[in-house]
Each structure stands twice: as structure tokens, then as C-alpha cells.
């Protein structure tokens, strides 16, 4: 159902700005499907550039949506990323918000 402003759900205070960005949403969705994944896997999956991906990963890490584990594969350093409980809850809430918007539109398309 539309409100007075013609909006159906993307109210600024209700939006999780972190997940509203497509690349960050892609990262969090990807990590929700696995136990952990490294930088190259995320890069391949999201088709993002190194710098762009690193920036968004840092933002997600700063907000505790993902956790970072640095380890070695032989002599080569590898950084693994995994979704935290906070990130998982945020993703569920975000999906619920998208679903509610679609539902509202279906019940009252005008």
C-alpha cells in the first residue's frame, strides 16, 4: 500500500544502507551460502575490481557483518571471509523488507 509520498517501503530509516548497495548485498548473499570464502572467490563471483571489493569488504567488516581470518596456504597468505551472526540477521531482515514491499505491491499495485 502506498503512503502519502507514493512510497511503498523504502523508507530511509527502514533501509539497511549497508545491504542496499548491490555489491555488498552480493558479498553477504555469497557468504550466507558457504562457511567461508577467500578474496579471489568473492572477486570471481561478484566480478568486482580488487579495490572496489576490498573497500566494501572493509565496510562490512567494520560493521561486524563479516569476520576476517588470515591464514597461510603453504607459504602464500590467504584471507578468508565469513558471515557473522549480525550479518546473517541483517540479511534476513533485508530479505523480509524486500518481501514486504513486493507483498504490498501485489495487494495494492496502485
Amino acid at each position, binding site marked *: 500500500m*502506498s503512503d502519502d509520498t*507514493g*512510497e*511503498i*517501503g*523504502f523508507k530511509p530509516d527502514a533501509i539497511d544502507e549497508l545491504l*542496499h548497495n*548491490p555489491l555488498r*548485498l*552480493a558479498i553477504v*548473499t*555469497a557468504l550466507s*551460502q*558457504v*562457511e*567461508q*570464502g*577467500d578474496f*579471489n*572467490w568473492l572477486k*570471481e*563471483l*561478484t566480478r568486482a575490481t580488487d579495490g572496489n571489493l576490498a573497500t566494501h569488504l572493509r565496510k562490512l567488516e567494520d560493521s561486524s557483518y563479516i569476520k576476517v581470518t588470515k591464514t597461510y*596456504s603453504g607459504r602464500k597468505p*590467504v584471507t*578468508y571471509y565469513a558471515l557473522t551472526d549480525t550479518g546473517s540477521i541483517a540479511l534476513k531482515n533485508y*530479505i523480509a523488507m*524486500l518481501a514486504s*514491499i*513486493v507483498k504490498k*505491491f501485489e495487494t495494492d*499495485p*496502485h
Partner: protein
Amino acid sequence: MKVEQELEQVQKQLAVMRDIVSQCQKLVVEDGTLYILWGSLAVITSLITYALTWFKVPVWTLVVLWIVAFYIPGSFATYKKVHTKKKHVVTFGERAIGRLWLGVLFVSVVSVILSLVSLLPWQGIIVIPFSIGLVYFPLAVLLDWKPLTAFGLVWIAGGAVMLVVPAFYSYLVLDGLIVVCEIIPGILIKKRVHKLIDMAQAE
């Protein structure tokens, strides 16, 4: 923001998630190599065991044979494969299946050794087809490959057959099961994985 714009935005976000989830579903849990390796080692060692029984060799010789010809090369090759594999991602399924196979390996080792030294009635060996068959059911879901469920059922049916045939022939039934339900699925999984990789690269 207008209703249409909002809906368009939602659809874009959903498309992003759908694309990522679809790509993640292609993650490979197993590539069939270890099925072929363990299956071949089991059949070869079993046939050697049959040949040796004609010479009435002591039981401890057979125990040593299974350890040297089956468990040592199998475990070494598995260890090498797991540790040299280029790991970019760790899936939940991969870990769960790894633990299940470890359980099957432990059950197999114990039952084979106990039955060889006559501490376990020969019927005890049927825990092997039953345990492998049970692992195939969750594996079929994780690999999204339904034929594996059928192979799991054949394992269990074969285990039941092993109970009703004389002890000597039950081991031959087990060898047949390994060829049909482990080596052949291993080859099919390997082919399927190569096909999926080719498709992913083409995309």
C-alpha cells in the same frame, strides 16, 4: 521515490541475490576421484584376499594386506588430495560430508579387522554397505544429483543380499557393489563435474 521505481529497485536487489545463489549452487562438494580410488583399492585388495585364501595363509597376513594395500595408500592419497586442493571456499556441505565419510572409514576399518580376526560374525561386514548407502542420501541432495539416491538404495539392498548368501560369496557381492555403486558413480560424478566446470567457464 515512486512506486514503480521502488519496485524496480527491489527487483534489481532480488536479481543480485538470485544470481549469487545460483552461482553458489554450482560449488563442487565432491569430484568422484576418491570414490574411484577407494573403490578400486577395495576390489583389488579383496581379490588378492580371495587368492590368498586358497593358500590358507594366516589371518594376520590378511590384516596386514588390508592395511598395506588398502588403508595406507587410500589414506595417503586422500590426505594429499585434500591438502593440495586449491581452496577458495569452504562449504558447509563439504565439511559435513567429510565427517560422514570419516565415520564410514572408521566403521569399515573396525568391521573388516574384527571379522578377519573372527571377533565379529561375518554378517557384521554388512555395516559397510549400509553405512555407505546411508551417506549417499544426504550426498545426493548436496550434489543435486538424484541417481546417487538410487545407488544408495542398491547399497542397502546389496547389504541385505550379503546376509542371505554364504559368507564366502558375501564378500564377492560386496566387491560387485563397490564396482557398481562406488566406482561407476565416481566416474559419473567426475564426468558431471567436468561438464559443470566447462559450462561455468563458457558463461
